[in-house]
């Protein structure tokens, strides 16, 4: 199930010129640096008049949802998937 978190994280990302959004490569969370294995989907969300980018990724073998706030250039770990019901 999707477990909501909302914690700030450090992300190393590339900004490819042909893409409209940065592509995360590594995520550092709670002291661990994990590689981004797959980017499943990126979509935009408009909230409170501000645009953010939502990433569905597999990081270190686990599904996570990252949010990038382009105004503050900050990344947040919004949710992870856990097997528990």
């Amino acid at each position: 199930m999707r477990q909501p978190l909302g914690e700030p994280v450090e992300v190393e990302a590339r900004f490819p010129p042909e893409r409209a959004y940065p592509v995360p490569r590594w995520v550092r969370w709670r002291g661990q640096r994990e590689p981004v294995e797959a980017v499943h989907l990126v979509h935009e969300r408009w909230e409170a008049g501000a645009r953010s980018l939502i990433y569905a990724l597999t990081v270190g073998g686990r599904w996570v949802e990252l949010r990038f706030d382009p105004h503050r250039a900050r990344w947040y770990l919004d949710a992870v998937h856990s097997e528990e019901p």
Partner: protein
Amino acid sequence: MVFHIDMDSYFASVEQQARPYLRGKPIVVSGRPDIFSVVAAASKEAKRYGIRSGMTTWEAQKLCPHVIFVPGDPDKYETLTRRFLDILIRYTPMVELYSIDEVFLEASQEAPRYGGPLALAQAIQQDFRQELGECLTCSIGLAPNKLLAKLASEKAKPGGIHWIRPDQVPAVLAHTPVEAVTGIGPRIAKRLAHMGIWTLADLGRFPEPYLRRVFGVYGAVLALWGRGVDPTPLRPYWQEEEVKSVGHSHALPHGLRHPEGARAVLLYLCEKTARRLRAKGLAGRVVHYALRDEHMGVSTAQHALDSPTDNADTIFQTALDLIHAHGGFPPQTTLVGVRVGALQPQKEAPRPLFPQDQRRERLQQALDRIRDRYGEEAILRGTTYTCQVLVGATGGMGKQKEIALARKGADR
């Protein structure tokens, strides 16, 4: 040559693309799964159990007890629609966004460059898989016009390509039941069946003057459809006209199909309409309502106000007065809709004169600020609480015009 591109199980496929742990499982995108809601989209796996869009979540769970309910996420679907529109525009500018998950494309001139219509359709499918994701498949129908292309894409489902060539049209018409055509609903199909018309070919053989006598102007359109002719031209996204009216409608789930439920939904829709008007900086003078009963009977009326409004209470009260003047809510209301037309920029509309109206305006502005900051559902009227069942159930639907206009704006 017209292409009809239909995304397969769109909302459900987007969710499966975003969350690999949902792939291969029966999932349903709906409103809030914890309360009575409706199915907005079912995955291919859920469809195997007989689950279809429009069913209640209760019915879906009965058909498949282990079905997974996923709340709708309109932002996700809208982003993906913008993205597949961008892909198609690389091939041709003649792209019509027909709905959030359906597109018509005219590519007679471009097709030879890609090796013919079939090769072009395959290239589009490949681009979608590569750029949108492996779960986002589409079915493509190729035919001489929009009507036949849509019939062809039905044959192509899921994920295939079906081409109706001009010489195959008579056979297609002979085998296609009239209700397969979008625009021929169950009531019309029943009336046609009483006249001995079952297939499009039957319709084509029927004398047009008789169809006109029975169905009026619509009879002429039916006669054309019966001959496999579609009178509607492809309307590319860049010809999309600016918004002429703003409104919302919603089919009601069983639990709300009573006058109080319909009244609550009307208020909820008026709030949404007024909020969208304010977001666009518009106000409108003509309020229009639509109600549908359980026999598919529709009641509509409109009223012109003295001055334009963007206020939910004014829109609601006007619609409510109209409804009462036209016999009230049907005991079993199945659909409620409200629309505000005769739009003009809000800054040109007169400001409220009386203190109570000024207070109401300030209240509305305060509510807008709260919703801007904390989200649409952060603050609600108590009377619209029951409408939470509708939230997310049809997220993203009906947004095609706004997406097309945004893309048109980006081209400039």
